């Protein structure tokens, strides 16, 4: 009997080990969507929030991710919010995510960007929405109903994601292994501070009430109604919005406006030219592409929306509320992200130099050229302010330097192949070198690597890599061609 008990315990322990191995592999193999859209971070960040500390939820897809900044709402108006978009998030998923949010939060307002009302999303969008959702009745219902709709959808792959992602074994990256121990808190509360600008000269979509409404996606329409009903049941005020988008048109507007009227919901269309003018919104400057805003656009939208929400919904300010102290703690981190995004949005060198922060460590690698002698005084002044020895820069020689706190940490100048290497205070290794071309035509180049990862932009000129010591990451890598009029920044 004793033997049997021992054997049973051994069996049990082994099965537990098997389960642990399985779970560990699952955690490693699920893709970490930390790229441009940060879907994983957004979901994980939500679960790090303290309970019942969100007054406003921002719902939608990638346009919400980059267009609606909860920290802007807090910074400007003291509103406690969380932005809940994932890439191409179908309204089906938004509905279930709202139910999931309501398990731990009690928002009084839900702001929904209606972009997905007009689109059919692929399976990848559902996976990004659901893979990181914690298991509960909500998730079970969401994935079960989703998989019941098509024979080729595998419920098992949602229940045991490893069966879907195990073939990633040859594409694993460092973040797959460090995910388990990484900090899941999101200082931007579901927002991605986007950089970049676009060439679209989009001045908005003037109202055209006679325009035939565009057709809605059937599933999306159905689940928008579910969201509306859920908000009614939970006593949540639902606000429909549309962030500025170059692809918007009157037909789409009229679809949403009609629906809003039918269900007596407010609808704020930021594509309205009057509204864009009121926000001083310039699409070419404030958007990164045809659909998504950059940090400047998000700040403007956040400012307008924050005031609107305060006026319309009488939301309390949480600046001095000790229960919402977490927002105050996250604000500096958000501001750093915001500054980094603004830096990497600059397109002119002088503007770029203006946006450099004290906490940056700058790695300069300058390919010597006669054009350096003709750099504007304004630029030289800015470089001197950073601690750069501009006499050397304008001498036309190859030059490498590492600047921090307005001082030169290390430098090397002269013909040949200057090479600098070492370790920063936070143990990040760096290596900087310049190569002069074999002849005039082949041109020089540079190599700037941190922690064995190469960052220098290809080409000849002034290479700069910016390392943010606060966030411990490279935030920008540029090349300025001294011979190009206008001194534009290339990435």
């Amino acid at each position: 009997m004793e033997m049997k008990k021992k054997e049973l315990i051994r069996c049990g322990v082994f099965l537990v080990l098997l389960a642990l191995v399985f779970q560990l592999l699952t955690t490693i193999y699920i893709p970490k969507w930390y790229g441009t859209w940060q879907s994983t971070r957004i979901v994980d960040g939500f679960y790090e929030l303290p309970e019942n500390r969100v007054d406003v939820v921002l719902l939608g897809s990638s346009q919400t991710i980059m267009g609606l900044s909860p920290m802007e709402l807090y910074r400007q108006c003291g509103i406690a919010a969380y932005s809940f978009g994932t890439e191409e998030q179908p309204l089906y998923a938004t509905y279930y995510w709202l139910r999931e949010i309501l398990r731990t939060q009690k928002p009084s307002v839900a702001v929904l960007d209606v972009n997905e009302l007009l689109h059919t999303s692929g399976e990848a969008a559902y996976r990004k929405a659901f893979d990181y959702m914690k298991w509960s009745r909500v998730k079970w219902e969401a994935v079960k109903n989703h998989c019941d709709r098509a024979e080729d959808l595998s419920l098992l792959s949602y229940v045991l994601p490893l069966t879907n992602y195990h073939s990633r074994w040859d594409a694993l990256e460092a973040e797959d292994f460090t995910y388990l121990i990484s900090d899941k808190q999101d200082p931007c509360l579901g927002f991605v501070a986007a950089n970049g600008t676009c060439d679209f000269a989009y001045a908005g979509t003037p109202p055209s009430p006679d325009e035939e409404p565009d057709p809605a996606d059937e599933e999306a329409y159905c689940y928008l109604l579910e969201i509306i009903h859920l908000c009614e049941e939970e006593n949540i005020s639902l606000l429909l919005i549309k962030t500025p988008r170059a692809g918007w048109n009157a037909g789409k507007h009229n679809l949403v406006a009609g629906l809003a009227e039918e269900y007596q919901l407010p609808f704020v269309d930021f594509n309205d030219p009057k509204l864009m003018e009121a926000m001083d919104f310039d699409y070419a400057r404030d958007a990164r592409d045809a659909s998504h805003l950059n940090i400047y656009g998000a700040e403007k939208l956040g400012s307008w929306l924050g005031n609107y929400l305060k006026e319309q919904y009488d939301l309390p300010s949480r600046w001095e509320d000790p229960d919402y102290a977490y927002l105050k703690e996250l604000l500096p981190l958000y501001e750093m992200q915001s500054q980094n995004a603004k830096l990497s949005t600059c397109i002119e060198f002088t503007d770029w130099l203006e946006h450099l922060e004290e906490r940056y460590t700058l790695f300069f690698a300058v390919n010597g050229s006669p054009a350096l002698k003709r750099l504007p005084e304004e630029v030289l002044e800015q470089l001197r302010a950073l601690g750069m020895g501009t006499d050397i820069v304008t001498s036309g020689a190859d030059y490498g330097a590492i600047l921090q706190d307005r001082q030169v940490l290390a430098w090397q100048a002269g013909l040949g192949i200057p090479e600098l290497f070492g370790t920063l205070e936070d143990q990040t290794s760096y290596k900087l070198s310049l190569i002069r071309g074999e002849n005039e035509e082949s041109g020089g180049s540079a190599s700037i690597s941190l922690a064995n990862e190469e960052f220098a932009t290809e080409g000849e000129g002034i290479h700069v890599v910016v390392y943010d010591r606060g966030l411990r990451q490279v935030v920008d890598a540029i090349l300025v061609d001294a011979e190009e009029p206008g001194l534009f920044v290339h990435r």
Partner: protein
Amino acid sequence: MALTSFSFLCFFTITAGIYYVIPRRFQWMLLLAASLVFYYVSGGWAVLCFLLYGIVITYLAGLTLERVKEGSKRKGLLTGIFVILTLIPLFLLKYVRFFGLSAPFGALAPLGISFYTMSILGYVIDVSWGILPAQRNPFRHALFAAYFPQMTSGPITRYSQMAGQLFAPHAFSYEQIAFGAQRILWGFFKKLVISERLAMAVNLVYDQYPVYQGWYLVVATVCFAFQLYTDFSGCMDIVLGVSQIFGISLPENFTCPYFSRSISEYWRRWHITLGAWFKDYLFYPLQKSGLFIAYLDWSKKRFGKKRGKKLPLYTGMLILWFSVGMWHGGSWNFIVGSGLLHWFYIVSGELFTPLWKRLIALLRINTEVFSWHFFQGLRTFFLVNLGFVFFRAPSLRTALSMLASMGRVFNPRILFDGSLCRLLKPQDWVLAIFSLLILLLVSVLQQRIRIRETLAVQNLAFRWSLYLLLFAAVLIFGCYGGDYDAAAFIYQRF
């Protein structure tokens, strides 16, 4: 329900759990119920009916034949009738098209019909020969016929092997559970990591062989040899492991067949139970039959004593190998690839034996050394692979065309210039080769030691680390489930 499916794992786990909780005298009933449920879930009512038909016919056959006088003509006739009745479903479902008739049941292919038909047919013949008493309990007979672990891929069992185990009570044994689980895990490794991976390359070449000619076909055929072996033997490992967990030992079906040094040895190591069944129930009875005895007499008179003995033997073997080929599939490529070609190998090997012996003596070849044994192994592997071309090809004509291509198109450079990466990604090739090396190591060890027993006495940490590593390897490197396509996740809508 595939053996490597999640649903089978759940089904088996639940069955095994209940098996050791219920009173032992009900265990065989649980296995019967589980077997019928398994069959129904796998194929539905229609295919279950075929199984039930086979069970009923052979049950009645046993009872009837036991009562008939031994050696009487009536017994022979009745045995023949029952054999035909038992074979009818198999004929209608698998072989009717071979004889140019239309298939009455369309594309219906009941799970494992080729396997269980052989088992229950063997039972009928054993009872007819007086080797076994008939099973009077219809439910016990049903369990023998329908025992679910062996339904999908065999092995082909004999009633005498199974009866004592199937109906006996089985106490919980940690060792049996552990050994069974280890065997299942090893089977999964062979099937999912090796077989399914190689299948990707094989299918690509064989399905598009006009594009992939010459040495592509050579490579694909060799890959197929390992794909088939790891698939079939992997399934056997799972089947035997599952059965061991129930406390029931099934006969081995593979003992490192690619270590064989002759075709005869190969068939003593490959699909052992099939070869044994045809030998015991077809070949030997045929050789001892009145017809063949008369044939032998005539042959001896015609060709002399020595040569005369060979003709009926070779004729019997021809019938045997034709049947083996037919069993694999009702088309000529199977009959040739798994049957007649091997008959040709064995017969020509025997006929040319004096010549080989003289050649070996002339060249002073030492036949007791590793190099000679290695050559024999390679030669056997080559001959088997020729058969696999027929086995894998969709038709006889295509197989011949492929063989012609292998001889005509000389492009061994594909082995070195990266062309093979068209068949599999480099990582998959590395993984496949590495896994095959592990398989080779284990196979070599199996010839010398009993691996599971040897592992069982090692330290706990070592054993468990090995098992968990194998488990992780199957999970990560196994080809199953969805295939993650990173490109599909790239957000492209702007």
